[in-house]
């Protein structure tokens, strides 16, 4: 163990270096968007007893700052309110709410933060921290970004292992009832975010969706 304290000057130097390297503080933000609730969806599909089922989370906030030529200022932030889950079966929904699965009571939300977005040969990829049930995992989030009749559309599909997040732990861990792999499908039709610092619009509540936010 080194017992010598580093000099204050060095600390300052390292601090300044750290700050300037931190893109979210200094880089100009890329244009920001929020999803148009009625046209966007966050769905997933898994298997139960050999059968594929799909579910959606109807209530989530998302804020996407992205421009291919402003990558340092690009980031994606999503908060999902888990109790808006609908898997087309009340029994399954209430099981998924329980402590062995998502544990809504203790962990009402899941979050996704992609602070870095890079361009790979296949297109843009976010390096994201996904937090479900209090467990955070770094995932790579490849997506497509298209312009569809004047609106930007983000599409992505990632496959998660539910056990990375302790979802379906304990006796459910083996795959005899539910498969481990869950495909998550993201389809966001985007509108420009309302002017700076406004809270992200809430998807799934059309009334709260921003009405034709002004372009900047």
């Amino acid at each position, binding site marked *: 163990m080194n017992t010598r304290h580093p000099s204050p000057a060095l600390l300052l130097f390292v601090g300044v270096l750290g700050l300037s390297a931190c893109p979210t503080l200094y880089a100009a933000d890329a244009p920001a968007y929020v999803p148009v609730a009625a046209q966007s969806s966050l769905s997933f599909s898994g298997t*139960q*007893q*050999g*059968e594929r*089922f799909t579910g959606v989370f109807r209530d989530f906030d998302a804020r996407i700052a992205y421009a291919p030529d402003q990558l340092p200022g690009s980031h994606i932030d999503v908060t999902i309110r888990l109790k808006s889950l609908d*898997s*087309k*079966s*009340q*029994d*399954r929904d209430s*099981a998924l709410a*329980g402590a062995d699965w998502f544990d809504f009571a203790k962990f009402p939300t899941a979050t996704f933060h992609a602070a870095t977005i890079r361009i790979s040969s296949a297109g843009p990829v976010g390096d994201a921290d996904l937090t479900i049930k209090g467990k955070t995992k770094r995932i790579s989030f490849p997506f497509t970004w298209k312009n569809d009749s004047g609106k930007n559309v983000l599409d992505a599909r990632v496959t998660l292992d539910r056990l990375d997040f302790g979802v379906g732990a304990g*006796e*459910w861990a083996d795959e*005899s*009832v539910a498969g481990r792999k869950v495909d998550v499908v993201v389809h966001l039709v985007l509108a420009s975010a309302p002017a700076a610092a406004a809270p992200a619009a809430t998807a799934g509540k059309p009334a709260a969706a921003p009405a034709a936010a002004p372009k900047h």
Partner: protein
Amino acid sequence: MATATTVPGRWGGLSRLFHWGMLGLFLVIVPLGLYMADLPLSKQKLKLYALHKSIGLTLLALAALRLLWRSTQRRPSLPPMPAWQERAASATHVALYALMFLVPLAGWLFNSAAGFPLQWFGQVNLPALVDANPALKSLAREAHELGAWTLVAFVALHAAAALKHHFIDRDRTLALMTPGVKAPGTGVDP
């Protein structure tokens, strides 16, 4: 249900196999259904549900095969008995056949309306009869439960009548369906 012609002798081997084999499965599936429904959610519970549904689907298929087979067979003639008893017996048989289909179909409907997967012994997945539908779900559940109890009641009546013919009337009714049972008193096969 009454077939125009009857024949002397007893029910053939395959008919008897269907009859007693299905009784064996009913003796498993009904207690299983009653037991499993009250369990708290666990993997074990889902396994028992899966077993119940698998046996139920097997019974549904057997009911169809049994009815098909029956249409190729001639019914053994009953021993002499009052006409009302014969009528009551055939009415009971019609009800039993109807319930052999209705109960598992209501179970399947319930399962479908609940949006649950349906697998036969972990081998084949069967399609849902309808889309998930909470209102239909509780209706189908009631129908399944009521149907199951009605089936149990008719089986009890039917079995009691068969035993009454054997032990009280001492006729060959039970022997018609039961391997190894001889008509009382006569010591001969029907």
